[in-house]
């Protein structure tokens, strides 16, 4: 008999961690009401043997894959198995919640626990690892993400998660939720848009006039070091005074609290990464290429649009990605000064010690950030791919 050989340590570790989480922690947590912390319930107790068995079989398939010589087919198998595991875990979560809810008092809260989240994360990482080993194209990755998102939406629409406390919180805040997501997106767009419009010319100016560069970065770095809550607080006084002095502005919505100070703070935070990537991107264009462009008789404008901008595009897009993801996260804090958005649920939940309500704000924020990250990464890869660099 030949000795067992580990071919994919990453996958083996993921399987081990996920198995330990399933065996040692609760799959869901059951609490008698909103204020008490829940008691862990293991996977096999309430989801039925078929689903538990299915999850175990996928675990064994993944374990076997980590011990097999890596080939294209193996990476594809791992991707499919891990994606199946994600869908199965989601379905099992709904089933466990439904079963538990049937025998529990109406105020009982059922939430996903470590035994769900850890295997879910491990499965996602297994997909990422397999795709990296495959060196797959952006289209393939996009298809995987779309399929998983479709499965999640399909399960949710089918009422799978109805019994979960997160879904109950959602039911309770249904009207506010859609508005909050929309407000959140508008806050991000309202911050990133002006930040690009101000930051890109500022970056170009800093690039063309090196003397300007020191002071510009000094100010922007200083802004970045101010904690976000402090910056929101600092803006209350001048903006309240401004609204008092110019009543028209006050009527237009400018004030010490609300959307105006939130947008100003978000723009200020977004400026540094925008300016920095503008300087890095445009400054990184080979001077010989620019000399040639000038020597060929391109005007300043032609050089910018035809040469500098396309060559800087990968770096600029990467900067845009950082700024967008950062703004999605920071916009949560903006709820603190009454700007709305998903942060409303987070702070409301924190105030009420209601973890599920916090999650109702936090999970969509994470989803938005991941979607932005993934979408812009795909766009960057497509642009960079054109130059073969």
């Amino acid at each position, binding site marked *: 008999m030949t000795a067992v050989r580990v071919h994919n340590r990453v996958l083996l570790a993921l399987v081990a961690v996920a198995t330990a989480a399933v065996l040692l922690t609760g799959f869901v947590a059951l609490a008698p009401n909103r204020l008490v912390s829940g008691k862990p319930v293991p996977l096999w107790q309430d989801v039925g043997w078929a689903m538990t068995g299915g999850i175990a079989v996928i675990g064994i398939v993944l374990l076997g894959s980590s011990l097999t010589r890596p080939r294209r087919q193996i990476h594809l198998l791992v991707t499919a198995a891990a994606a199946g595991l994600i869908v199965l875990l989601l379905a099992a979560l709904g089933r466990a919640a439904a079963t538990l809810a049937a025998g529990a008092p109406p105020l009982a809260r059922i939430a996903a626990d470590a035994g769900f989240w850890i295997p879910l994360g491990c499965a996602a990482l297994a997909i990422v690892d397999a795709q990296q080993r495959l060196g797959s194209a952006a289209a393939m990755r996009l298809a995987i993400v779309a399929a998983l998102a479709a499965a999640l939406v399909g399960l949710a629409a089918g009422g799978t998660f109805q019994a979960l406390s997160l879904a109950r919180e959602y039911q309770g805040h249904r009207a506010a939720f859609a508005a909050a997501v929309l407000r959140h997106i508008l806050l991000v767009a309202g911050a990133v848009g002006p930040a690009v419009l101000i930051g890109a010319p500022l970056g170009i100016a800093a690039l063309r006039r090196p003397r300007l560069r020191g002071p510009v970065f000094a100010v922007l770095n200083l802004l970045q070091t101010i904690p976000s809550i402090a910056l929101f607080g600092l803006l209350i006084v001048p903006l309240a005074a401004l609204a008092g002095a110019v009543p028209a502005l006050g009527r237009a919505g400018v004030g010490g609290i609300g959307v105006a100070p939130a947008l100003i703070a978000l723009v200020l935070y977004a400026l540094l990464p925008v300016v920095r990537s503008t300087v890095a991107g445009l400054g990184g264009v*080979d001077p*010989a*290429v*620019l*000399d*040639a*462009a*000038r*020597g*060929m*008789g*391109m*005007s300043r404008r*032609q050089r910018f649009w035809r*040469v500098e901008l*396309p*060559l800087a595009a990968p770096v600029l897009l990467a900067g845009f990605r950082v700024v967008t993801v950062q703004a999605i996260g920071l916009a949560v804090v903006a709820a603190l000064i009454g700007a709305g958005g998903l942060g409303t649920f987070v702070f409301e939940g924190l105030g009420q010690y209601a973890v599920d309500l916090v999650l109702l704000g936090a999970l969509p924020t994470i989803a938005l950030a991941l979607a932005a990250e993934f979408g812009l990464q795909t766009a960057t890869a497509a642009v960079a791919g*054109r*130059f*073969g*660099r």
Partner: protein
Amino acid sequence: MIEIEHVSKRFGRQLVVADLSLTVPQGAFCVLLGQSGCGKSTTLRMINRLVPFDEGRIRVAGEDVAQVPAEVLRRRIGYAIQSIGLFPHWSVEDNIATVPRLLKWPTPRIRDRVEELLELFRLAPEAYRRKYPHQLSGGEQQRVGVARALAADPEVLLMDEPFAAVDPITRAALQDEMARIHAATGKTILFVTHDIEEALRLATLIAIMDRGRIVQSGTPLDIVERPAGDFVVDFLGREGIGLKLLSVRRVADRMRAGEPAEGAAVAITAPLRDALAAMTARRTDHLPVCDAEGRIVGAVHLRDLVR
């Protein structure tokens, strides 16, 4: 034709080009030769106004460059540089088409011109036009760089050490290519280099520069036979001058026509230096000479070389 008249240029207090005058006649291959920092690149870049000059006048094809808008002027002058500066996000075809597109040539004319130039540089059009610069070797990139400079059929061609960054074998091939293209197109070329061998190989006219001035100009033979002063002698390499002489004189100059000889022949158009090298390698004191068709037309003897 390029006429540079009493041109001066200062960077701060330093005079980098000092009252320089030089005329490059129509169809000449003029090499501006000098050490780094002598002002030769600055001189070249003043012609297409990449560097503004303080005093004097420069005319290209009879027209004062200061009277023409800089961008219009540059589109009429070919420009090739050491670091090539191909646009990495454009295919070979797009790169070569840069100036014709700026001049708004119709598309079919641009396509034909690109094809013609790729053929001139012996790059198979179908294989190369869609490639990107990073898919080309250094020598191919430089060919495309020169093709791009020639694309709009410019009146003059400016070349700033275009072959300095490639390996010696590729450089020799590119130099041969350049000589062939000069002969085929009859362009007026101003070529900057610090490499004396390159200058002797390519130039019909050499101007040697030192500290912003031209210290001597003339044909390669003039310069090697009658170097003006110590600077030029040093530049030519003192003891090495003899070899330089053999580089600029041709086998045809010293051949004994009709005399028979045995062995592999040397071309009648080759420099005498090649004949000396062949004799040394083969341990012989004479070689047969052949013409372009490979017919033996005479012989060259070792003692003729030192005559």
